[in-house]
C-alpha cells in the first residue's frame, strides 16, 4: 500500500523512461514487512523503531555498511504481506525481515526463499519452517514458537498447577503455542480453547473458564487482543480466583501499561524483559527510551538483535549480497552481542537460548509501576524439537 518509489507513480506521469540502475554506493535495501495497523500494530512499530535505532547508532549503517529500510504494513493479512514481498522482490530487494505474525510469514517466506533472497525473522518462528522445511537462507533471531511455550509448560509444572485451561488464537503461532505447552506440561489440560486472531470480545471464553474452574489459565494473545483479554479477565472477576500464566507476548511492556493493575502477580515466561540485568540490555533500554520516550517491548529487543545479526553478516561481505555463501556463513556464526545474553544458532538456524519465569510485581517497594521480576530460569540452552528433522 505504501510503496514509496513504486513505478506506478512514474507510469502515471509517464515522463521518465529509465529505471534506476544499481549503483555500487547504493545502500543495501532491507525489505521490512510488518504489522503496523490493527490493534497489534504497535508490535510492528516497536520492531521497526528498534531496527532503526540499531541503524541510527551507526549513522545509517549496520556492520559498517550503509543500509536502507523499506517498510511496508501487512495489516495482519497474509495476502497483503505476500503482495508487498512480491513487489519488493521485483524491485530487486534480496534481504527481508520484520514480519510479526506467523501466518503472514507463512505466505511471504516461500516466495522470498524461492527467489534466493534471505529472510531474518525479528519475531515469528513457526514450526513449519523449523523442521523438514528449514531453509539455508532463513534465519530466526527471536525464538522458535513451540520452544517459547514449552518454557510455559515447564513453568506450570514448577508452579504446581495440575489443571489448566489453554487459550490461543487459531493460527499457526497459536497452534504452535499450545503444542509447545503440552509438550512439557505434566498435569491435565481441562480444555484447549481456540479464539480468532482478530477477536476482541472474550465473554464466551470467560464464561467457559469460569465453568471449568481450573488451577490456572495459560493464554497466548499478542497485541491488542491480549490487552482486551487481560482487561476482560480482570473485569469478569476471574483474576481473583484463577491465576494467569502467560508467555511474555500476552502481557508485554505496553500491555502492562494499558491494563493498569489487571496483571498484578501474574506469571510470565520469556527470554528477556526490560529489567534484564546486563550492561548491553540496560544500554539498549536507555537508548530506546531516549529515542522514542517509551519502554521497549520484547519485540523491540528481538528486532534490535536481528539488526545486529544482519550487521554482522553484512560486515563479512562488505554489503555485497551476491556473495550469498559468505553472507550465510557469517549469519550462522551469530557473531554479535545479543542483549538477552547467550545466543547461538542451532543447525536449523533457530536460536539455542535460555528461558525465564517472571512475575509481575510492583517496583520501588510496592509504589512503582508493575515490572516483570525474574523468579528463576526454567530452561537452559534450550533447542526446539524440530531441529532434529532439519537436514541442514
Amino acid at each position: 500500500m505504501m510503496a514509496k518509489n513504486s513505478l506506478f507513480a512514474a507510469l502515471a506521469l509517464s515522463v521518465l523512461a529509465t529505471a534506476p540502475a544499481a549503483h555500487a554506493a547504493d545502500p543495501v535495501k532491507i525489505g521490512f514487512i510488518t504489522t503496523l495497523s490493527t490493534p497489534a500494530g504497535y508490535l510492528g512499530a516497536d520492531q521497526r523503531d528498534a531496527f532503526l535505532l540499531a541503524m541510527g547508532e551507526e549513522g545509517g549503517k549496520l556492520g559498517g555498511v550503509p543500509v536502507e529500510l523499506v517498510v511496508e504494513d501487512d495489516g495482519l493479512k497474509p495476502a497483503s504481506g505476500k503482495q508487498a514481498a512480491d513487489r519488493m522482490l521485483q524491485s530487486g530487494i534480496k534481504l527481508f525481515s520484520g514480519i510479526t505474525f506467523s501466518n503472514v510469514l507463512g505466505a511471504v517466506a516461500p516466495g522470498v526463499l524461492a527467489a534466493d533472497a534471505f529472510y531474518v525473522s525479528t519475531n515469528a518462528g513457526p514450526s513449519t519452517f523449523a523442521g523438514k522445511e528449514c531453509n539455508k537462507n532463513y534465519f530466526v533471531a527471536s525464538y522458535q514458537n513451540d520452544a517459547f511455550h514449552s518454557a510455559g509448560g515447564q513453568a506450570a509444572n514448577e508452579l504446581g498447577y495440575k489443571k489448566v485451561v489453554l487459550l490461543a488464537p487459531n493460527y499457526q503461532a497459536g497452534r504452535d503455542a499450545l503444542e509447545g505447552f503440552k509438550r512439557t506440561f505434566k498435569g491435565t489440560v481441562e480444555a484447549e480453547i481456540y479464539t480468532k486472531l482478530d477477536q476482541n470480545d472474550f465473554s464466551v471464553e470467560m464464561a467457559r473458564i469460569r465453568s471449568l474452574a481450573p488451577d490456572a489459565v495459560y493464554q497466548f494473545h499478542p497485541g491488542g487482543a491480549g490487552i482486551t483479554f487481560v482487561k476482560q479477565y480482570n473485569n469478569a472477576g476471574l483474576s481473583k480466583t484463577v491465576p494467569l500464566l502467560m508467555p511474555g507476548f500476552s502481557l508485554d511492556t505496553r500491555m502492562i501499561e494499558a491494563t493498569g493493575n489487571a496483571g498484578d502477580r501474574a506469571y510470565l515466561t520469556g527470554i528477556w524483559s526490560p529489567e534484564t540485568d546486563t550492561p548491553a540490555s540496560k544500554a539498549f533500554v536507555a537508548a530506546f527510551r531516549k529515542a522514542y520516550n517509551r519502554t521497549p517491548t520484547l519485540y523491540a529487543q528481538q528486532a534490535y538483535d536481528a539488526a545486529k545479526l544482519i550487521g554482522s553478516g553484512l560486515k563479512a561481505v562488505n554489503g555485497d549480497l551476491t556473495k550469498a555463501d559468505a553472507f550465510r556463513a557469517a549469519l550462522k556464526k551469530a557473531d554479535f552481542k545479543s542483549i538477552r545474553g547467550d545466543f547461538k544458532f542451532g543447525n536449523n538456524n533457530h536460536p539455542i537460548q535460555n528461558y525465564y519465569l517472571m512475575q509481575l510485581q510492583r517496583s520501588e517497594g510496592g509504589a512503582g509501576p508493575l515490572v516483570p521480576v525474574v523468579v528463576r530460569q526454567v530452561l537452559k540452552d534450550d533447542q526446539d524439537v524440530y531441529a532434529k528433522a532439519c537436514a541442514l
Partner: protein
Amino acid sequence: MLLIFEQLLNGLQYGAMLFMLAAGLTLIFGIMGVINLMHGSFYMVGAYCGAFAIIQTGSFLAGVLCALLGAGLYGLLVEVTIIRKLYQRDHLYQVLATFGMILFTNQAMTLIFGRTPPMVEIPAILSGSVPLGGGLEYPIMRLALIVVGAVVAVGLWYLVTRTRVGMLVRAGADDREMVDALGIDIRKLYTAVFGFGAVLCGLAGVMAAPLLAVEIGMGERILITTFVVIVIGGVGSVRGALVGALLVGMVDSMGRAFLPQLLQLVFTPTIADALGAGLVSASIYVLMAIVLIVRPKGLLPARG
C-alpha cells in the same frame, strides 16, 4: 447451568448493542428506502470520538457526549451532502456511494487518530463485576450496556408510538406519498431520522469502546450483522429490529459457547473451534436466508 445463564446475559448484551445500531438503520432503510452501508462507519466514528475524549479528559461522560456529537454531526453532514441526492435513485448507486464513503471514513480516521487503536479504560463506577449468585460474577460494564439498550428500546417505543414525530415516521414507513400530502417538509424529517440513527450508532460505539477494541474496520464487521438483524426483523420496523437483534444475539452467543464443545466430541480442538466459529458466524446468515425464503418481508414487517 452457570454457563447457560452467563451466555444468556452475553447474548442479551450483544443483542442490546445490535439493537442500538439496527434501530437507526431500519428507520433509514424503511422510511427513505436508502441502503446505507456506512451505518457502521458512524459507530466507528462514535467509538473514536468517545475514546479520544475519554483519554483527553478522563471523564466517561465527556466521552459519551463527544461520541454522540461526533457521530451525529458526521451523520448530518453525510445526509446533507450525499444521501439526499440518492433518495430517488436505484439501490445500486446507494450501495456504491456509501461503499465509497466507508473507504473514505476509514482512511480519514486513520489519518486523524493514527494507526494505533486508542485504549479506553472502563469508568471507575462501571468497572469490576457484581456477584449474581451461584459463583457467577458479571462485569458491570456489560450490564450497563444491557440497561442502555433497554432504555433506548423503551425510549424509541415512546417516541414512535406516542409522539407527533413518531407518527410521521410510522406514516413515512407505511406510505411515503401520504406524508408528503400532509404538507410536511419530508426533507427535514429525513435529515432528522438520519442524524438520529447516527447518534444511536455513536452511543453504541462509545459503550463498546471500553469493552472491545476501537479500531479501523470495526464498523464493517458489525454492519453486515446489523443488516441481518433488520432483514430478519422486517425492514422499517423498530419492533422487528428489537426481535431480530435479540434473536441474532442469542443464536450467536449460544452457538459460540456450545457448538465448539459439541464438535470437539468428533474433531480435534483446532478443527472443532475453527469449524464451530465458522458455523456460528454463518448461522445467522442461514437464519436470514431461511427467513427471507419463508417470509420475504421479515418476521415483523412495518408495512402490514
